[in-house]
Each structure stands twice: as C-alpha cells, then as structure tokens.
C-alpha cells in the first residue's frame, strides 16, 4: 500500500504547486534593465548603417522645429553643457544615461518612433554610448557626426555641410607610406630660407708617422 494511494489527488496538487512556483518565479525574476538585442555579428554590421548616423545638415530640421520627432541628447557633463550646447538639446550626461528613469524615457521615445540623437564634443565621445544603446535594441538612437565641435564651427551655415565630407571620420588624411618613407625630405616647417650645408673640414694628415717601436 503506497502513501499516494491514500490520497490520489496528492500528486496532482504537488504538480500544480510546483508549476505555479515556476511561473511565479519566472515573472518576478529580476529582469536586467538592459539586455543585448543584437549579437556580435549584427552589432558589427549595424555600425555600417548609414541611417544610424545623423548628418550635421539634418540638424536644420531640428533647429527650425520643423520635425517634432527628433530629440537631441547632449551626453557631456553639465558644466560643458552650460558653457554651450545645440539649442533645444536635452542634457543627460553619459553617467546618467543608464539610470532607470532615463532608460524608461528612451523606451518611451522608441515607442513613439522619436529619433534620439546623441552628441558629445566630437563623434568619438558619443561613439561608445551610441554603440551600446543600439546593441541593446534602441534602433532609434543615432550619433551626430562631427559632434558639437563641428556644429559650433558651422552653426551659421549647416546646410553647406551637406556637400562636405570633412566631418566624416575613418579615412586617411595623409599618404602615410609616402610621408613615413620620405626620409631626407622631412624638414621642420619653420625653415623657409635656404640653409647652406655645414661643411666640416677634416684636417688632412700631413705626414705619416714614421718610426715606432
């Protein structure tokens, strides 16, 4: 006589309790705020997307308030932001970006299909944060090419930068091989006048030493 035979429903009760525990555990599990949505290969492919970048010329639409679906986030610290920033930009420093309320804000923007443009002093400053937020699934996050410095230099005529490519990074500015190999031609830029070579006269030996031990 088994103990289960006394109460045939005992197994069923145990089973239900067990599954219930699993289900409760699954839903109350502490979910991480961020999790990777793109794997490594996808992340690398994502870097090449043209639409993941924000051209300086496109800032005009934001500045003239024509498009309401662009939000600029200045990821520099408050001090730099206070010294100068793109008008209308929101200041959430890189340190604060991972806070829960800011992640929720980003989620909200994503739901409403609002484009979020991150910028720092240069593209490099915002590069890491931009990569991370795209990797965790915020495909509405873009990076401002050229950063604040480029904006500052071209603020008067942003449309003109449409035809320029000087804010695009990644290409070689110089012919490295040529410069590194031009051994004797390299000279300091400050010398403009011709320099005469210094002649060092070596004393000729007058007489042969004669004699000896």
């Amino acid at each position: 006589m088994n103990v289960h035979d006394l109460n045939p429903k005992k197994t069923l009760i145990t089973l239900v309790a067990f599954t219930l525990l699993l289900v409760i555990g699954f839903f109350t599990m502490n979910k991480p705020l961020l999790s990777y949505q793109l794997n490594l290969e996808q992340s690398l492919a994502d870097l090449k997307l043209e639409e993941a970048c924000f051209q300086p010329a496109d800032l005009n639409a934001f500045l003239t308030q024509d498009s309401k679906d662009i939000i600029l986030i200045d990821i520099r610290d408050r001090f730099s932001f206070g010294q100068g920033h793109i008008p209308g930009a929101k200041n959430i420093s890189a340190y604060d970006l991972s806070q829960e309320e800011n992640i929720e804000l980003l989620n909200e923007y994503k739901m409403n299909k609002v484009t979020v443009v991150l910028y720092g002093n240069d593209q490099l400053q915002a590069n890491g944060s931009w990569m991370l937020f795209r990797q965790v699934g915020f495909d509405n996050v873009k990076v401002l090419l050229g950063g604040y410095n480029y904006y500052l230099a071209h603020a008067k005529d942003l449309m003109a930068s449409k035809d320029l490519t000087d804010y695009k990074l990644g290409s070689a500015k110089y012919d490295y091989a040529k410069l590194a190999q031009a051994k004797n031609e390299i000279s300091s830029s400050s010398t403009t006048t011709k320099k005469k070579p210094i002649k060092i006269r070596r004393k000729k030996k007058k007489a042969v030493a004669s004699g000896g031990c």
Partner: protein
Amino acid sequence: MNRNYFFLTALMLLLAIGTMFLSKSEQQKQIEPDKLLWEIIQPTRYVSTDEVAKLIIQNDPSIELIDVRTPKEFAEFSLPNAINIPLDSIVTTSSLEYFGIPGMNVIFFSNDAIQADQGWVMTKRLGFDATYVMKGGLNRWIETIIQPTEPKETAPQTEFDIYQFRKGAQIYFTGAKVETTTNAKKNKVVIKRRKKTVTASGGC
C-alpha cells in the same frame, strides 16, 4: 509502481532537456550592458600617440598593437610590429586569440580613433581587459610624430619638451636627418682645427 512516478519522471526529464536549449543561445561570455556602459564612460582607455611612440621606442614587450583597418591599408603602412585584425573580423574565434593574453596590453588604432574605439567596445563586450585606443589614430600619428610642428615661442616649456621628444621620435621612425638649427640667419660654421706643428717622429 505507481503511474504517477512515471509521469513525474517524464516531466523532470522534459525540463532537463529544456535547459539544454536555453544555454545554447549564448556561446560567448559577455559582460552586462550596464557594466559595459560604465566602462565606455571611462576615458582611461585612451593613450596618446606620444605614449605609443615611447613604448615602441623602448621596445616594450608587453604591448600588442592592433591595426583594425583593411588589409590593403595595412599593407601600405602600419606601425612597427602591428597585427592586422580588420574590424569586420574582430569577433571571430581566430582573432579573439590575440586578446586576453596575461600581461599583454592591447592598443587599437585606425585612421582616426573611431574604428579603433568600435573595436574596443566589441572586445570589451566580450570582457577583455587591458585594451586601449590610440587617440587620434594614424592621422594624429603623422601630425605629431612624423611631422611634428614646433610650438610657438611663448609656449610653456613642457610643450618644447614634448616637441624635443617628437623630433627624436621622428628620427627614430623615419630616419630623417637631424636638423641642427632652424635659425636661417646663422652663418656658416667653420670649424678650425688646430694644426699639429710637429709630426711625431721616431719612437721609443
């Protein structure tokens, strides 16, 4: 035997098999996104071209220079003893063997710092430490080491010290001739050697 036991055993086995599929999705160990973001914020990963030049000149055995540009660009010019791992293939298993070697400091570089920084983020996501980015990349390498510009006369002494180092590094990396002076007004230097009056004759 009770029928229920079979039922429970079958359920447990099913769950056990289920867990096998769970672990399959994540092959490589990655650090948490918020931890990665914290690492990204730190500016400590950047090294200057001067520091890199110094390490190369000193023949530091612990540095590993990684060129993330394309093989074509790498063939044309690169830093001495650099290893070429194009950014596209940075997370392949054969490339990852170069990272995480104990005692080695990896320095990424590209034309400017962007691609190198992207390579840094990708390897950081996989949890590799002791990785750095050469700030300014090869463009700044040329501007500072290969073609250093002289600081203004009013510049502080430290800038002149850096300039002196860069001139030395320039000679090291290019074999450029030593510039004795930049003052154009200087006259010819004639070195007069004292003539020996008497030739040594005879001996002991």
